[in-house]
């Protein structure tokens, strides 16, 4: 296998500019950059619209997409998302093609070529993420590249759905295409489309249609860039590309130079390997020094034989998501950002596993970067003029359930449920609460499909879909809540599902500055139910959220058996009438709960964001549950009592730590952790 490790490691950083590019950037006239850079964004936007409208997978609509424009050398100039993951990783296959195929007469790089790839080993995320790549030639000269990417919810793996929790090695994960040429002279090759269809036989219609949607997006952008170059001249285009990279680079450098230099650390814990419940540690050290950032994930647990591993390129790309969305959201989304940022990922950790590892669930691993970087960046920014961007961001779960089967129209379908994917809470900030059911942690530009769209395409009926009480992190400002979502199988004798959500035993978030984490969520199935009959009869006692669903068997509000399990689940098959919950986490709170405005607590109670017990026992606020009025006197007394209780229970650190250090989690929790407590490798990984 022709792995180019050096290129993968350096591929998201811009290559040194040519003198011609620097001169062209210098020669731009007043207004050229400001106007034409927006033109490029609009062109990419048009490409993304083409892909979304032509494609049929729900993931093309629900956010896991991008269209980007890149320099002739493969550096990101601008992108429209979707998710920034793919914009960043899109650079690596371009650079691979340039380096390895340009002078290879059996492949070559020519006008009208179309390349395609979904192999994470070549710098991507995981093989559900598929990319079309086209060069843009003007007068025989290579001017630019275009990449369109989107998550494809079926890969032909050992189980349906692309993300395969049961996978043990790469060999369980289906189609993995290294960069290959699938079209020449602006024509796609039927034989290669047939090959893909053959790999993806659980959802062949989706695969071929969505390949064409990606390619159409690239080609639309290619045409627009060529037209713009014809009008403005290639020199202006090269100068514009370089200027967009320079602006981001200098902006990042100047902004970080105004942060307080220092070292910021955070640690979170994952509660599954994908195969079984166990703790894995994820650690980060952020160093701010002289206008540069260094991000080091040393201290993260070793790789393992489960499915929740990633490659370093995945972790770097997740860093880029947070960096573009929090501190640098107002700069052009170009590769210039990475000029002043170094990212170290320890080899042999579950953040950079060996090439044979199962990685199809790697976004769940990369998702650990969200709370990690969200917290350390917040601590680095608090003392800067960017305090208003301090935010713990989101849960690390960042996924959904996948459903596969034959729909009510007799068509085979396999897809992620796009609403849960876009329904995570956003963390609290220094001056306001987080956002309830805000969106997709990998990119805030997603769109949750309508209930009616899902019910017309899939053999599913929504039992409920609503904001979920008590899922936010509490604090002076609370995090956003997640969503309580459940489906009933209807219109098909069975469907299969998998789930790569997590955080059922341990929340991978801490909140900020004394704020609490969000709650954990179990996976729930109900089998052998009479739910459809009860709904038809207008039964008013049918469960309306996960809490009621969890006790439905005990309370006899549904027939059948309630199964409580971890949210990460390999393949499960449900019969018509069975129920599947696919709920989403809220996010972390900010600051001391005893500082929250009592009126805000009462409002949370009125809006069913929290329950009465949380108002009283966590916030220390006494509220009339009928009128939602605060008893000020009782609240002051309750809070004083709680504050004194802290002093009575707590101990000086030196005294407390003696008893703390004697504690240890159960053996099962440490089975895949590495050495305790420093998470060093303590065994050989076996992959067959």
């Amino acid at each position, binding site marked *: 296998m022709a792995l180019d490790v050096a290129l993968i490691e350096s591929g998201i950083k811009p290559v040194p500019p040519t003198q011609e590019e620097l001169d062209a950037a210098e020669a731009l006239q007043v207004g050229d950059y400001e106007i034409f850079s927006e033109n490029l964004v609009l062109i990419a936007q048009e490409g993304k619209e083409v892909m979304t409208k032509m494609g049929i997978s729900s993931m093309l609509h629900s956010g896991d997409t991008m269209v980007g424009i890149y320099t002739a050398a493969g550096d990101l100039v601008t992108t429209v998302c979707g998710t920034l993951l793919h914009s960043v990783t899109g650079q690596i296959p371009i650079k691979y093609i340039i380096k390895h195929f340009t002078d290879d007469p059996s492949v070559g790089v020519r006008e009208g070529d179309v390349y395609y790839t979904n192999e994470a080993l070549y710098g991507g995320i995981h093989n559900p993420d598929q990319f079309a790549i086209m060069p843009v030639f003007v007068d025989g000269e290579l001017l630019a590249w275009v990449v369109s990417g989107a998550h494809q919810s079926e890969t032909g793996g050992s189980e349906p759905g692309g993300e395969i929790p049961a996978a043990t090695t790469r060999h369980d994960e289906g189609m993995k295409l290294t960069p290959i040429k699938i079209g020449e002279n602006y024509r796609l090759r039927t034989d290669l489309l047939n090959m893909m269809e053959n790999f993806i036989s659980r959802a062949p219609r989706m695969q071929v249609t969505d390949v064409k949607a990606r390619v159409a997006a690239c080609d639309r952008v290619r045409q627009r860039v060529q037209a713009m170059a014809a009008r403005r001249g290639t020199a202006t285009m090269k100068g514009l590309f370089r200027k967009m990279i320079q602006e981001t680079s200098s902006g990042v450098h100047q902004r970080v130079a105004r942060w307080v230099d220092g070292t910021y650390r955070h640690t979170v814990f994952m509660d599954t390997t994908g195969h079984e419940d166990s703790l894995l540690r994820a650690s980060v050290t952020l160093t701010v020094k002289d206008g540069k950032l260094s991000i080091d994930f040393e201290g993260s647990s070793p790789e393992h034989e489960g499915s929740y591993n990633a490659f370093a390129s995945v972790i770097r790309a997740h860093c880029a998501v947070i960096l573009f969305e929090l501190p640098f959201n107002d700069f052009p989304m170009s590769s210039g950002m990475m000029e002043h940022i170094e990212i170290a990922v320890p080899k042999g950790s579950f953040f950079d596993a060996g090439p044979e590892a199962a990685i199809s669930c790697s976004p769940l691993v990369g998702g650990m970067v969200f709370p990690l970087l969200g917290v350390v960046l917040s*601590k680095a920014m608090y*003392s800067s003029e960017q305090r208003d961007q301090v935010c713990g961001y989101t849960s690390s779960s960042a996924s959904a359930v996948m459903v596969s089967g034959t729909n009510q129209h007799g068509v085979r379908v396999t897809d992620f449920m796009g609403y849960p994917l876009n329904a995570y809470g956003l963390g609290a900030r220094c001056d306001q609460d987080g956002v309830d059911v805000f969106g997709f942690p990998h990119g805030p530009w997603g769109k949750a499909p309508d209930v009616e769209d899902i019910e017309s395409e899939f053999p599913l009926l929504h039992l409920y879909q609503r904001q979920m009480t*008590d899922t936010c992190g509490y604090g002076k400002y609370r995090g956003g809540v997640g969503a309580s979502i459940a489906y009933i199988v209807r219109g098909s004798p069975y469907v299969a599902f998998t789930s790569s959500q997590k955080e059922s035993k*341990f929340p991978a978030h801490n909140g900020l500055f*004394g704020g609490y984490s969000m709650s954990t969520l179990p996976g729930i199935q109900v089998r052998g139910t009479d739910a459809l009959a009860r709904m038809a009869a207008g039964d008013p006692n049918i469960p309306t959220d996960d809490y009621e669903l*969890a006790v439905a068997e005990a309370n006899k509000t549904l027939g059948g058996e309630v199964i*409580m399990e971890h949210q990460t689940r390999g393949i499960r098959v449900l019969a018509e009438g069975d129920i599947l919950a696919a709920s989403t986490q809220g996010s972390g709170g900010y600051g001391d709960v005893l500082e929250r405005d009592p009126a805000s607590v009462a409002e949370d109670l009125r809006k069913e964001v929290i329950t009465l*017990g949380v108002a009283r026992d966590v916030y220390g606020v006494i509220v009339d549950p009928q009128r939602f009025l605060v008893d000020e006197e009782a609240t002051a007394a309750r809070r004083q009592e709680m504050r004194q209780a802290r002093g009575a229970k707590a101990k*000086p650190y030196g005294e407390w730590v003696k008893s703390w250090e004697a504690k240890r989690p159960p053996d099962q929790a440490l089975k895949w952790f590495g050495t305790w407590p420093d998470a060093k490798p303590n065994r050989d990984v076996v992959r067959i």
Partner: protein
Amino acid sequence: MSKPDTERPSLLEVTEYLAIDLDARRWQCRCCGHDLGEAASNYKFACLVADRDPREVHPPVIDGPYTFAPDPDWCRIVEFYCPGCLTLIEAEYLPPGHPVTHDIEIDIDSLKKKSA
């Protein structure tokens, strides 16, 4: 304990509840001014500390291994309070016995150099 003078230029606001007196190079509570040790050290060592069962904050709904609350055998909430005013300065969700995080080390020399 008196409130700190937040307008003092030598006082760097580091978090919602923590500041560093750059002249004295020491942590202090932003709510009450309580001294929290040398800035080069971990302020948590100067705090009052308690580890809590996570079910006190995240109430379980059912019994069993998956209850809507973190598993108390796997996860504890470690809370750090200011000894002066008992404000909850920081909270960590840690496996029982796991070392606490030295989360912030400010480069005071660099800051002073920039300010000069």
